[in-house]
């Protein structure tokens, strides 16, 4: 697992902004959804684009943000060839994100492209990253869908952590599962380290993490170690970790066995890491998916009747269901 030194942790975005439902003056129930998965080519962009479309069609105002800073192609998935303004303008020229949002031809859905040519734009400095995050958090939309890049780079992890819903895409294949777990662990432990630092128990958490070599400690073990000397901090730490509640989508499902992978991952993650995961559903392997990508037309637009398309709608509905009042009080 990739480990981060504590020195790098400072700028992790906290959820400092009051939640919409907490703020009497706010008219929005805004949610940030980050779509990640560690591995490339597993359909993150396809899920992001079509999730955005499904949400927009359901009446939500949605902004898609291509946060795959090094390999942005969400615009291509939506049939937009050359975006004029991109996130690099926020990062390098200090523009506001709102000014970059493009129409997509779908009502309620706008896109902020991440395509960039500047060599260093894919690895923004901490300050630029913080500015980006701050703008994302205040963007005016019901749903903000972030399409993350592959890998476990810091900014990818941080985008995932700042989201209300970290949505993990995986394929029923060992390579994808492996990368997905690596991604999850990296995110979980970045969160742990950040929270521990905020609570002033970073040294304890670090000691607990480090005492087993490179092997993973479970969150409970770390919490327990902290609790030995700092019981109150441990309570808060546990709460913070419990908030790390990933949403799972299994893509390219072909067999009945594939169908069961999602539930199994949820069970296994819970078993070993003690954390809940919400399974949003599976997306069938469907020729329509790659065919529409080649046509540069979104699946939900070009092949709305396909099984993959209907699966994506189901996933979107499951996601929205999580935001209903019943589950609002986390």
């Amino acid at each position, binding site marked *: 697992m990739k480990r981060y030194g504590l020195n790098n942790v400072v700028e992790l975005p906290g959820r400092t902004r009051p939640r919409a439902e907490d703020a009497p003056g706010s008219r929005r129930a805004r949610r940030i959804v980050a779509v990640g998965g560690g591995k490339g080519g597993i359909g993150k962009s396809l899920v992001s684009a079509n999730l955005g479309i499904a949400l927009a069609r359901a009446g939500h105002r949605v902004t898609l943000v291509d946060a795959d800073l090094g390999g942005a192609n969400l615009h291509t998935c939506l049939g937009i060839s050359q975006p004029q303004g991109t996130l690099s303008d926020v990062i390098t020229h200090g523009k506001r994100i709102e000014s970059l949002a493009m129409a997509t031809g779908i009502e309620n859905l706008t896109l902020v492209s991440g395509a960039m040519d500047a060599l260093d734009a894919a690895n923004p400095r901490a300050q630029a990253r913080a500015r980006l995050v701050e703008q994302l958090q205040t963007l005016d939309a019901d749903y903000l869908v972030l399409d993350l890049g592959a890998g476990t780079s810091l900014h990818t992890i941080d985008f995932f952590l700042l989201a209300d819903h970290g949505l993990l895409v995986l394929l029923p294949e*060992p390579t994808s599962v*492996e990368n997905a777990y690596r991604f999850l662990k990296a995110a979980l432990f970045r969160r742990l380290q950040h929270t521990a630092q905020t609570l002033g128990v970073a040294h304890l958490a670090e000691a607990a993490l480090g005492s087993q070599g490179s092997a993973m400690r479970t969150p409970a073990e770390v919490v327990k170690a902290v609790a030995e000397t700092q019981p109150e901090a441990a309570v808060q730490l546990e709460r913070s970790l419990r908030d790390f509640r990933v949403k799972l989508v299994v893509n390219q499902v072909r067999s009945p066995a594939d169908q069961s992978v999602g539930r199994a991952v949820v069970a296994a993650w819970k078993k070993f890491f003690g954390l809940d995961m919400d399974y949003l559903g599976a997306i069938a392997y469907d020729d329509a998916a790659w065919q529409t990508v080649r046509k540069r037309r979104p699946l939900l637009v070009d092949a709305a009747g396909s099984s993959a398309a209907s699966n994506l709608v189901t996933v979107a509905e499951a996601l929205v269901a999580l935001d209903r009042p019943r589950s609002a009080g986390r």
Partner: protein
Amino acid sequence: MTVSEEPTLYDVLEVDPGSSHEELRAAVERARDTYGTESLAVYALVDEDRLGELRAKLEQAAEVLLDPARRASYDRSIGRIGASTLWAEDDDDEVPLPPVEVAPHARRAELQLETAPEDGEEDALAVPRQHALDLALTDTPGPFGKGPQRSEAGTGSLSEATASSAAPLLSGDWAAAVPAEQQGPRAPAEAVPPGVAEAARAVVEPEPVVAEVPVVARGAQEPATGSVSTIPERRGLPPALGLRMKPAEPPGEIPAAEPPPEALPEPGPRHREHRLRLDLPADAEFNGELLRRVRESYGLSLQQVAERTRITRIHLENVEADRYDRLPATVYLRGILVNLARELRLDPARVSKTYLLAAQRSHAGGSLVSGRT
């Protein structure tokens, strides 16, 4: 948060204790699908050791809970004791614990001091004794009998996860040992119909024991042995150990449907007739003398142990005599000690660690590594 709660077998399978047989069967299937070697969901999630431990534990839960008789017995064991986990904990020391698990011993020792005097015949002990018996009679492994209070399903959480992954897990032994042959002259259990084996034991093994506590329920499924109603107590044991014996058990069990994971150790203790209660301190230092006393407390000869463990008798003798210079290199010696400890129902890690330490001390880095065999 509490992380020390040990899960029940139901917790392990993530089912409600009131589940029907079919529901349990489905849960076992689900667990095998989720955590089995073919499962994608555990690929690269945690290290193999941890996974192996979980698998062994799941198999154990399946074995007990899918057998109605054993399940009933197990249910009694967790239902009868109310809030007290005393006796369930007491069983802890029958399963070798992972090295970190020193605490349960200590905890149990305290509890015993409070409520369970030495081998007296107090009436007050009859009930808990009975509980311990149930476990022993049905060959139900100890550490799962703990605590009726399962963590609330669903809400559960960090602590639950710890209980199932980081907490003392089955040391493999159990799953491997269950189908193993019975002691002494008897044929392997699989080859002998239960009734026959039971009868054979009655003939072959008169126990040199004193009656201690009357036993009532053995369950209708075991009419042949229903009359065995004593807790045998072997005389002449080293007083310091405070050994207590458990009575005979029913013959071998049906093997698990799946072979145990390969992480599992070699055959575990097969001498179920003499179940030892060791009141060894948690920090017991094992040397040859102590190992010999434990072995003898089981009534096992060196030859018997050698046959079961496949450790040569010479090695065993040398281990017991602390003849370090005649023992093989540390890496092999550790294997011998671990095997021996399992056979003697001791904590393998503890035994090997303390024994090797003593060997090193006496040697000051001498010929332990010289590799004589």
